[in-house]
């Protein structure tokens, strides 16, 4: 039986090759080539542009370890990633639950559209709209002062919360979508079965629904955590001076300081750290699921 299967799958691969080819070609061109170029850069002393001299070095990687600033920023970015991911769970999961299990028909479609709208709007537009809302004398400030009887000053602009708000807004649709898909697949009769056995709604949620939607939560968390740790646009625009993170430092190396080799090295250190974190978390999360 196993032999037959093995033969079957080998036979199955060959006809599939022409179908897989475009995908592999695309992966090679779009990801592998630029990535290898970056690996190459990260071991250079300088860019080989305008006939400048260059040599191989490990110095770029050493820089990370020689200055505590980089480690501090990396930790700050990891914390940012964790916080944004948690907020996305807190906001996105209930939203996905309502979409999948409470709303039906037209109203579901309408809300769904609202949730994925940020996906379709340009990132910069989105961030600058938040800037308009969050600054002193901005929309939030004006609106709250119009309603509240006492005067308060809301100036969230250029602060850590502003960065969090901007990032959560950008990334929460991922969590909603991945959780929606797993929640959608959970049969309503499981919920009813749980309740008929004497479990309250909360107990059913804890013991049946959340465990069954774990794959969606994990996928969403991975999709959010990784890019947020390396994010630079939201921290820079909404965070101002407080918005210096690991991602903004990398961006600086590429666009301001023009030290591509250091930028590349810092990127690969981040990649390694993120992969290690995901690798360590995987078994734990798999057991939870």
């Amino acid at each position, binding site marked *: 039986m196993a032999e037959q299967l093995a033969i079957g799958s080998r036979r199955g691969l060959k006809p599939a090759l022409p179908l897989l080819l475009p995908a592999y070609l695309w992966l090679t061109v779009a990801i592998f080539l630029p990535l290898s170029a970056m690996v190459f850069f990260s071991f250079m002393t300088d860019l080989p542009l305008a006939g400048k001299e260059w040599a191989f070095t490990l110095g770029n990687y050493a820089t990370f370890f020689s200055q505590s600033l980089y480690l501090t920023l990396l930790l700050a970015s990891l914390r940012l990633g964790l916080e944004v991911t948690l907020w996305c769970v807190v906001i996105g999961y209930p939203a996905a639950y309502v979409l999948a299990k409470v709303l039906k028909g037209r109203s579901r479609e309408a809300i769904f559209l609202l949730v994925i709208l940020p996906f379709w709007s340009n990132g910069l537009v989105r961030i600058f709209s938040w800037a308009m809302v969050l600054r002193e004398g901005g929309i939030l400030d004006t609106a709250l002062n119009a309603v509240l009887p006492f005067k308060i000053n809301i100036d969230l602009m250029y602060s850590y919360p502003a960065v969090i708000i901007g990032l959560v807004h950008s990334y929460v649709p991922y969590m909603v979508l991945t959780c929606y898909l797993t929640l959608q697949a959970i*049969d309503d*009769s*499981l919920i*009813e*079965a*749980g*309740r*008929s*056995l*004497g*479990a*309250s709604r909360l*107990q059913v949620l804890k*013991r*049946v629904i959340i*465990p*069954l939607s774990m794959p969606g939560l994990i996928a969403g968390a991975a999709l959010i955590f990784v890019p947020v740790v390396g994010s630079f646009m939201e921290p820079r625009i909404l965070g101002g001076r407080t918005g210096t993170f690991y991602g903004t430092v990398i961006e600086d190396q590429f666009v301001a300081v023009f030290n591509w080799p250091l930028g590349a090295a810092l990127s690969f250190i981040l990649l390694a750290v993120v992969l290690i974190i995901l690798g360590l978390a995987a078994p734990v999360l798999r057991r939870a699921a």
Partner: protein
Amino acid sequence: MAGVQVANVSRSFGAHKALDDVSIDFADGGFYALLGPSGSGKTTLLRQIAGFDFPDAGRIAIGGESVERVPVEKRRIGMVFQNYALFPNMSVADNVAFGLSVRGEPKATIAVEVQRALDLVQLGKLGGRRPHQLSGGQRQRVALARAIVTKPRVLLLDEPLGALDKALRVDMQIELKRIQREIGITTIFVTHDQEEALTMSDRIGILRDGRLVQEGPPEEIYDRPQSEFAATFLGDANIFRGDAIGNGIKLPDGTTINAASGASVPAGAKASCAVRPERIQISAGTAKFDAGNANTLKGQVSKRIFAGNNSTYFVERDGQTLKVIVQNTGAERLAEGEPVVLSWSPDSTVLIAAN
């Protein structure tokens, strides 16, 4: 354990009346089948009793306690779903343990009770498996064990055997009946398989378009249906329509059919008579028939279907096709096209008021 009283329950979805003034008294410890065509409101009624849905009007009581506004989890019911609804993220034992564990029972008690329930459904050794590693019949047993381990007051089953093949179905019917007797639990069983309803239940309720058509023990419904629908839905029946004349009807061609039981219909009103195919005696046009068979009709065999232990004859008579089932006694068989006489006793005939 407890009986269930459903009194004047109605439930509408928009303009559609899924349940229309339904009243049934489910006796304590009885096995009750709810039978009816698709869309007749069986599931809706079961969901009102379970508490997944609430009636617009009427009363529901379990064990004498009114429960209309009590949520499912407080009703102490056990429910078995058509698709089993086992929790895929838990082992078989954890599935069965679920109801006890949400109640906060001590672990040791749970283990004992779970094992007892699994033994009862003859799955004592499979506690460690996951639901997807079980066959359909085994899953059904787990679902049953899970539903009864909490010692519910009522057991509700919505077409629990619908997804099983015929042979397994019969096994599970016997099994379910055995378990029900053993623990003596009031059981309400939804099915649209009439044979299942007849063989398993103490009482049957027939639903149609949200209304309770007839309710009673299987023999009573089979022998004395109160409507053409009940007569033809539960088993086969030949229906004659005509004008009532005391204890019987006069057919349009003047023939009278006498009935010993059934509704009392004022003379002249529209009425029908129902007679079961196996109660009719069929004989060749010239032969004699039992003197007690006061009802006789002449006809012609249009078709005969041989099924081993019996034969079904289709007899044409005055534009109507009648069905007669004859046990295979080795007697001479009638040929297609042959003129025949049908005869049966008024005791086998039920008078039904036109609806």
